[in-house]
């Protein structure tokens, strides 16, 4: 690392200069009010009654927020105060829309939220320093690959909606891939700490072998599991982290060639990939069949217009998978361009804060790890929102924090906790310096 990349050159926003936890308290209050009002309105819009369980809901929600906030105060007191409120806002908004779409999912989603917050607190507890993760990088890498393969194991794996990405243990279905992406991000970062000096000077196949294996393995598993979205996510994670670590453009060039080569190969080899591309190019060719979901999603967004139909007043239930893949369209319909833009802004806030952690990190591992986690979040949100908006071919993945889905929610809270952990570490390191000025 060069001298110009010392932490002090990273931008410090005015918010961060204040006492971060006090700022977080204020932001959480606003989020709480916004979500509570949205919940009441959604219920009023669908049933024309104030929900009977408004009180318990508020207690539950404020309780979970308070738990996470207290955990921050105790275990990550100096961390950036933007992460948690923005994540809770997305989570709360998603919960409101899920409840409004299908009341039977609400209880499950609130349980998963609680587990997610539990995972968040546990991560803060178990990972007092990010470098602990660095020590276990190979273990995590192997663990990630194993996690990815779990759904392929007979008896454990379950195929749902054409993708074999589910594992069933007892009554619980979960997607191990959601957690694998975290461990693989840790592995990529840790491995590149070791080899980046080599890579910067000469890029040889030999040095890339382990990481290449990890990449090819994860891609292979993904292809077998027919999960295109995750496949794309892992690939982007790999290329981005390698590019930043090696500081070589050739990585991007090779990545692009690999991407388009792989995409073309997948297109020629797999019918379902061809179908996805065809739908992307012209969903109106078969508006009642293959293109139905995209077409209905577009109609929902168009109905939303600038200000939306109002919560509970639209017809988002017409879109297949409105509570998971297409929740962005459901939000756009009922909250309009204003609401859907707000969701995009929320992700931009998270991404900006995540990149700031990467920028300000003084150790290579933290830099690459924060970068990897942020990339995961950014690309996942882009791929699914872009799919809904027909910017890219649709691949069925969740919108982080917003979509219904336990694994995704828990994994993303863990991801958030890891970013918060690193943010806290660097701000603790800076604080005495600032105090002396």
């Amino acid at each position, binding site marked *: 690392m060069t001298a110009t990349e010392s932490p002090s050159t990273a931008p410090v926003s005015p918010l961060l200069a204040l006492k971060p936890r006090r700022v977080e308290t204020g932001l959480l209050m606003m989020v709480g009010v916004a979500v509570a009002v949205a919940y009441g309105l959604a219920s009023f819009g669908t049933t024309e009654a104030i929900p009977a369980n408004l009180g318990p809901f508020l207690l539950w929600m404020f309780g979970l927020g308070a738990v996470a906030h207290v955990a921050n105060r105790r275990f990550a007191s100096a961390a950036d105060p933007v992460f948690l409120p923005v994540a809770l806002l997305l989570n709360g908004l998603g919960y409101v829309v899920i409840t409004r779409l299908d009341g039977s999912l609400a209880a499950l989603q609130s349980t998963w939220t609680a587990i997610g917050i539990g995972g968040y607190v546990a991560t803060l507890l178990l990972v007092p320093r990010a470098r602990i993760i660095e020590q276990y990088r190979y273990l995590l890498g192997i663990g990630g690959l194993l996690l990815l393969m779990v759904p392929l194991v007979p008896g454990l794996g379950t195929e749902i909606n054409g993708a074999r990405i589910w594992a069933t243990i007892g009554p619980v279905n979960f997607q191990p891939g959601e957690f694998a992406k975290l461990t693989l991000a840790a592995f990529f970062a840790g491995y590149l700490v070791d080899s980046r000096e080599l890579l910067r000077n000469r890029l040889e196949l030999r040095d890339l072998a382990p990481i290449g294996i990890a990449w090819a393995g994860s891609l292979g598993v993904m292809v077998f599991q027919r999960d295109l979205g995750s496949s794309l996510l892992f690939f982007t994670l790999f290329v981005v982290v390698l590019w*930043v670590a090696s500081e070589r453009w050739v990585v991007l060039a090779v990545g692009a060639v690999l991407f388009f080569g792989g995409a073309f190969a997948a297109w020629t080899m797999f019918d379902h990939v061809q179908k996805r591309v065809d739908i992307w190019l012209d969903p*109106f060719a078969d508006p009642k069949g293959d293109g139905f979901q995209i077409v209905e999603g577009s109609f929902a967004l168009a109905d939303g217009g600038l200000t939306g139909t109002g919560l509970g007043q639209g*017809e988002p239930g017409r879109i297949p998978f409105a509570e998971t893949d297409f929740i962005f369209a459901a939000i756009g319909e009922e909250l309009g361009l204003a609401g859907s833009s707000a969701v995009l802004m929320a992700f931009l806030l998270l*991404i900006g804060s995540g990149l700031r952690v990467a920028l300000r990190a003084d150790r290579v591992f933290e830099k690459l790890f924060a970068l990897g986690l942020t990339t995961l979040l950014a690309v996942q949100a*882009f791929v699914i929102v872009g799919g809904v908006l*027909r*910017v890219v071919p649709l691949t069925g993945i969740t919108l982080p924090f917003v979509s219904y889905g336990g694994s995704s929610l828990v994994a993303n809270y863990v991801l958030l906790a890891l970013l918060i952990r690193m943010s806290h570490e660097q701000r603790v390191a800076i604080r005495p310096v600032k105090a002396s000025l």
Partner: protein
Amino acid sequence: MNLRIRRLGAVLGVLYLVLFLQLNRVQFFGAERLQDDVNNTRGLIREFGRERGPIVTADGVLVAQSVEYDGSVDVRRRYPEGELYAHITGYQSLNVEAVGLERSYNDELAGDPIDQRFASLGDLFVDRNSTATLVLSIRDDVQRAAAAALGDRKGSVVALDPRSGEIIALWTFPSFDPNPLADPDGTVANAAFDALLADPDTPLLAKSYREIYFPGSTFKLVTAAAGVETGLISATTPIFPVVTVYEPIPSGAPIRNFAGSDCGGDLVELLRVSCNTAFSEIGAEWVGPEQMVDTAEAFGFNADLGLDLPGAAESRFPTDYGERLADVDRFRAPDQQPANGAETVLPNGAVPIHENSARLAQTAIGQNDVAATPLQMALVAAAIANEGVVMVPHVVTELLAFDGSLLNRIEPEPLRVAMSASTAAILRNAMRVVAEDGTARGLLTEGVVVGGKTGTAQLGTDPPNSHAWIVGYAGVPDEEPSLAFAVIVEAQEGASEQTGGRVAAPIAQAVIETVFR
């Protein structure tokens, strides 16, 4: 590395900018195109599932209302009177475009117009029921009497107030039950539609204002009006010679009276016996093409009548009679007439003869290509009853707010002036003679002044079939007539001039009795 991270940030920023731009395209700039897409049923279903105002007759009978529905939508339309008002209310269906008042007053029924939504400043803050109630000019008792009198014969009955254009009865048999068509269950509605569309009698078509028929002799009223308007013909002069055949100038198929009979006399007599030969001559040689077309169009032919129901048909009077050949002087003997092709401009009384004046001889008695809706023929009678003024026909008189207060009153409005008041008075008297001592005797009703004109439009079939027509007016003695009507019974056996009077007059008489009871 930080440089790369910043660049990554920039790339992500651009990617999200693309998302944001596309989001604007889908939700704002391109939203209308998406909402209008043929595959987009959202608007349809939303529109369909909305509460709409009721429709009631002048005497308070509910003929359309929104009722609660347990299913895909909250409310659906019900038409309590079934087929009796189907051609007026129309229906609101998920499967096809709405028809009838459901279509023409869609916005008002749904409560969309700004003045309905925000009657006062306070309405900005409350979600008030802004749907409008439509009050019809239709009288349920008259509508019912018309339907009962026509029975299961194919035909139409139109009754209206000649002074205002307000329609009192508008009935066509066969009709249909609009309720299944408005079913929110698409398969129920589709099955009902398919059955109705397969029916050769086309019950979905509101023939009273959407189908055109040969008007037969009832059209002679228009020709008579045009003749009087020339100033050459009055109720008593000239006396047309009694003939059995009229030979058109310059040439063409001769016009004969029914069954080779002969007729002639003054205008009243011509109308009383419905004299073909004389009216052909009046049209072709006294009035001429320009004036005939003008008068027919002044009655409403070849134009939209401004009816407040959608899909109304235009009645048709041919306008092409070829090149102008010569002028005929009414006041010179035939041997003094100029030869064909001579350009002699004559004073008062000159009638231009055209290449195809023979066609005019036919159209003047409602044959050839003349075709009229029953509504149009009722308006012919109405104009005569209303001092020559045709009023815009309509079925809706008032729009009421949810609380019963008046939102809007549809004021009577003149459409055209068909003739002068004096011409109208001459024809009104002539029609009264026809009713008292001619083919329209079936109209006579105690205590009511009536006038009429029958028609028998031969269809050229074997055995002979005809549309039986009657048009006319009725009123309290010494007052302006308050009722004008037209009745057509389709494809009746027989072709005599008596057919119209025999078949159609009793139906009109039942309407008159009900109105003036």
